């Protein structure tokens, strides 16, 4: 959880890179004049993409651009679990533990992470390659349990395929995105059953 007083002493204050400054301007321009407040979320996302996390210094930068008080930025940045307030691993596992995923075995996913990486939610590996976090519903309930790593979703996870996924990521191998069981779209896991058996 974020602490009140500013980022650890010695860390340089956050500043958008020149490219991102241009990007920030174009984000701001998407909103009508006087509604720049609405740019807070995309700007926070931009800051997180640049720095890997949003600390108070980054929040101040976003506050400055949107004309909002920094505390308002702190409120949204802590409301959405997708924003992180400290550096995370290269592969940051956001494990959904909401109802659908939990019923479909998110505990197994967490167990796989613990066994393979020795990490519990909130943990980060010493080599900085992996970190784990629990998150709210990812909106992928149809293929539960689901995990988000960076910008990608991995679905239909089991203990075994989670372990396999971790190993591949560690080895830098190519991974399959989306369903890990080869399910296409959100088709029934038991195969096509609807209308099956009916005379055509």
């Amino acid at each position, binding site marked *: *959880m*974020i602490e*009140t*007083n*500013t980022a650890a002493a010695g860390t340089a*204050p956050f500043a958008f890179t020149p490219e991102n400054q241009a990007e920030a301007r174009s984000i701001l321009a998407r909103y009508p004049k006087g509604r720049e407040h609405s740019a807070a979320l995309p700007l926070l996302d931009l800051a997180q993409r640049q720095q890997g996390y949003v600390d*108070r*210094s980054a929040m*101040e930068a976003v506050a400055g651009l949107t004309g909002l*008080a*920094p*505390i*308002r930025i*702190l*409120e949204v940045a*802590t*409301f959405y*679990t997708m924003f992180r307030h400290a550096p995370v691993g290269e592969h940051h596992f956001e494990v959904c533990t909401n109802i659908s995923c939990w019923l479909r075995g998110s505990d197994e996913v967490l167990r796989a992470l613990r066994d393979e990486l020795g990490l519990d939610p909130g943990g980060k590996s010493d080599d900085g390659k992996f970190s784990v976090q629990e998150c709210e519903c990812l909106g992928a309930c149809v293929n539960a349990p689901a995990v988000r790593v960076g910008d990608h979703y991995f679905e239909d996870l089991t203990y075994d395929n989670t372990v396999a996924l971790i190993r591949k990521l560690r080895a830098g191998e190519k991974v399959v995105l989306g369903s890990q069981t080869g399910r296409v779209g959100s088709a029934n896991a038991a195969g096509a059953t609807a209308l099956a058996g009916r005379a055509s």
Partner: protein
Amino acid sequence: MPKLTIDGIPVEAPEGATVLQAAELAGIEIPRFCYHERLSIAGNCRMCLVEVKPGPPKPAASCALPVCEGMEVFTNSEMARAARKGTIEFMLVNHPLDCPICDQGGECDLQDETVLYGEAASRFREDKHAFADKDLGPLINTRFTRCIHCTRCVRFCDEIAGVPALGMIGRGSSCEIMPWEEGVLQTELAGNLVDVCPVGSLTNRPFAFRARSWELTKTDSIDIMDAMGSSVRIDSRSNEVLRILPRLNDAVNEEWIGDRSRHFIDGLLERRLDTPWARVTRGAALRSVSWEKALEILRERVEALGDAPKVGVIAGDQTDLETLTAAKDLCAALGSPNMDCRQDGARLDASVRAGYLFNATIEGLDQADAILLIGSDPRKEAPVLNARIFRRVRNGQAAVARIGVPTDLTYPVTELGNTPGEALAALRAGTHPFAEVLRSAKHPVIIVGQGALRREDGAAVLNAARDLADALGVVREGWNGFSVLHTAAGRVGGLDLGFVPGKDGLDAGAMVQALGSGSLDVLILLGADEFDTSALANRSTRDALVVYIGSHGDAGAAVADIVLPGSAWTEKTATWVSMEGRVQRTLRAVSAPGAAVEDWVAVARVARALGHALPFSSVEDVRARMAAINPLLGTLWTLTPAPWGAPFGTEGAVSAEPFTPAVPNYYMTCPISRASRTMAACVEALSGTEDERTGTDG
């Protein structure tokens, strides 16, 4: 106006009113936590759930539900009661139930509602969620485990104080109230947070664990710490003032007071003059003496000065009208024209009442649409009044411009610069666009601060402001927007009474000089400490005498030869006139310490010692005399608009010399607040943040 029934009672409520407000009209109180009359509607606590027909078959939050024609509302049905029970149960899930050690106990909304709707036992078996306390400065204690997340405090900061300092961060059961910066809240209205918090999450820090609310004697009084004349309640026990709270007064302070007005109280116990002091001869040390002895020394030393000693009186910022009346009569008896209630040298003109009143009235600011500040910083001089201006600006209803020091007023201001002569001329000539803003406004206001008047050319500034008001139509049929913002509670009363130099009389500055140079023999200071007393300390020529009457041993008493103990305003029933011209009376809450007396009595004793006994046998006599001098002073509580027309101020050039702030340090403006440790802690907390405010904190 939609008609509806609430619990069977037919009600007609204004369009746009909520069900909760309509119920209030019908005299039905619906329990609530997050709803607060003066804050925006959040609808997040769910305590106000009621049953409504027609509508979905579930309870509705009455604080956020607008009334409709034909609605039927049930505030006490099975469904409504069950809903409240559920809400309370959820609220208590993470609440520590530590009422026995909570300062809010006895005046806590959660406690009251739990008595009504709570269960005897909890069904919750898990661990409670606990939160760390935050440092919100010297005035507020936090106990965030008790927080019910109503966000009243967040909304108060945003919408009333104008400083978005607090937020609710996190989500779900991890929600907590968080300041962006710990250590201090950058507002002069912080104390009000304790009043808006419905539970014991934010409590009064200096008052912590001092008393239970039911042990306190409550005295309705008027605040004298600034010139607004806010309604307050003094809570005391065993002759000690323990707490001050605002009272509801829509015309003046609504339900807020500034931090100095609330938290100066420990200053009432420090540096008190509880016995007379005197220097037997010139240059001798001050010695504590009896009243008889003090008055005897006074008489002897004055007699030594010759037959007809020249006497002058300077009144301080908190001097009540009874004292001023006695002092004025003393001057009359002595044939002295030397009296002044403007110790700071403000060039206020006592001859025209409209020239020194806040004519727009404080409530009138709710209509103001264009405001020009001349040498005034309302945030420091009258923070509660500033909150009204902030509200207008925030709602986009008023534009504000300023001639003066560019300080943060919590709202955007058009700066006209701090070169008074030039800026006033530009407005007068219409070359600055704000002149047109004022001219075309429906209810324009010009606020003249003491910073503009306490200078050589103060009278010329006053005149120029008046001229501008006429030229731009600031005073028109049914509206007088010319308003002088005062910082001294006793000032308007003094001017109403004519406590200013008579013919050939000396003003405050001249009296101080004259005493130094030998043309004045006796100078009486009525709680006057806010001027440069070094001229009095260093007077070398003769045996001229300084007599100080007041409550605290401050700058004035230090240079005095005779010090007579008076009462602080919480210790007397006395009359003051607010800056709008409202004559108001305080009510004595505690008695003055030791041998201290009401100040008018001290003046009467001095008069007798000088051989001019005043014809007053009781305070009623003094009040009768006061009303005889100015009949307006006999009408309490009401406002009498002052007629406009007569010229005031003096024509002349306004210099380019910048205005200086009238209140450089909000927390210390008088002997009482200077004696207060709490006020000192506020100053320290604020100075700390300013030092750190480099880097990214900006």
